[in-house]
């Protein structure tokens, strides 16, 4: 199966049909839910305090629904209008924005208590035009620097993604560090092709140690 991010840009790939298919697929729902719960765990939020979170690439709100259930308030951004439309239909609670994360955010400093992102970062690794502002390093830098500023100190961003090479991991982690983040990679089930999941756990301020990946 070819990776969707190699087929077309996300706002094209996730058109009306693909958005509904993605959202209604029970296997995708389950995987997405598992990864959202794991991302929340890795966020390490203060217990019993509802947080204000950013869902990066919120899509149709599959993760957002879980944030709602957990009592958090959230805002979500996505570049695919069809996905956001499905989110509206599903009546998720979060505020939704049509936004290209490679263009960066305009949120005031310290806006969010944390950020999560499920299966999105790999989309930033493909240049969509030849314009200099759309090279992957440029887009990743805009993304990381404006995300860093939008997060409060201390806090974390947990970004699950599907890297296709060690070079990609290298590029992403080095640009995140340049933007000011501490932290690093958490790999769950590294020895299983099927269950393996990669989380970039980024820390603003003294976020503590990078957590251990799950084994199994």
């Amino acid at each position, binding site marked *: 199966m070819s990776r969707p991010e190699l087929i077309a840009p996300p706002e094209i790939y996730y058109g009306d049909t693909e958005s509904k298919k993605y959202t209604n697929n029970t296997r995708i729902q389950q995987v997405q839910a598992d990864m959202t719960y794991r991302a929340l765990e890795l966020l390490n939020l203060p217990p019993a*305090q*509802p*947080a*204000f979170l950013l869902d990066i690439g919120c899509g149709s709100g599959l993760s957002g629904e879980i944030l709602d259930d957990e*009592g958090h*308030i959230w*805002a979500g*951004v996505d*570049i695919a*209008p069809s996905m*956001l*439309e499905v989110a*509206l239909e599903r009546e998720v*609670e*979060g*505020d*939704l*924005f*049509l*936004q*290209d994360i490679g*263009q*960066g*955010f*305009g*949120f*005031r400093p*310290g*806006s969010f208590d944390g950020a999560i992102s499920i299966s999105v970062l790999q989309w930033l690794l493909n240049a969509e*035009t030849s*314009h200099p*502002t759309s090279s992957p390093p440029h887009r990743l830098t*805009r993304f990381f620097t*404006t995300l860093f500023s939008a997060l*409060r100190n201390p806090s974390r961003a947990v970004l699950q993604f599907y890297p296709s090479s060690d070079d990609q991991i290298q590029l992403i982690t080095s640009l995140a560090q340049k933007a000011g983040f501490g932290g690093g990679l958490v790999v769950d089930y590294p020895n299983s092709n099927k269950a393996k999941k990669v989380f970039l756990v980024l820390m603003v301020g003294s976020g503590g140690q990078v957590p251990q990946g799950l084994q199994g």
Partner: protein
Amino acid sequence: MVRLITHNLLACHAKGCTSNNFPLQLKDVQIALREADFNPDFVRGFMPKIEWNALVNAARQLGDSSLPAEQPEMIDDDLLKALHHVLLEIHIEEGQMTCPNCNHVYPISNGIPNMLLAEHEIA
């Protein structure tokens, strides 16, 4: 859906637009009111992030004058309830947000602001 909780955090992110770029000016807005569960802990925890003047002005523009012009030092239940309503229950469905500095217009359609920039506006 966009509510004043996010409007109060949102500045313009167009290239070179780094000062006087907040708050985005609301224009031609249509709103809808939807009840949300009142969570005093959340509102209290969110208070330090609020730009008070921007919030009061936006709320008044949307027809809600429950907040005092000056941020009160005493945080009581009435204030938390008023803040809850202003931050989380007023939904801007249609309209636009204009940057006071560079005049970029972010249109809001079907409750969703379009934050996309043109190529020449990307930093």
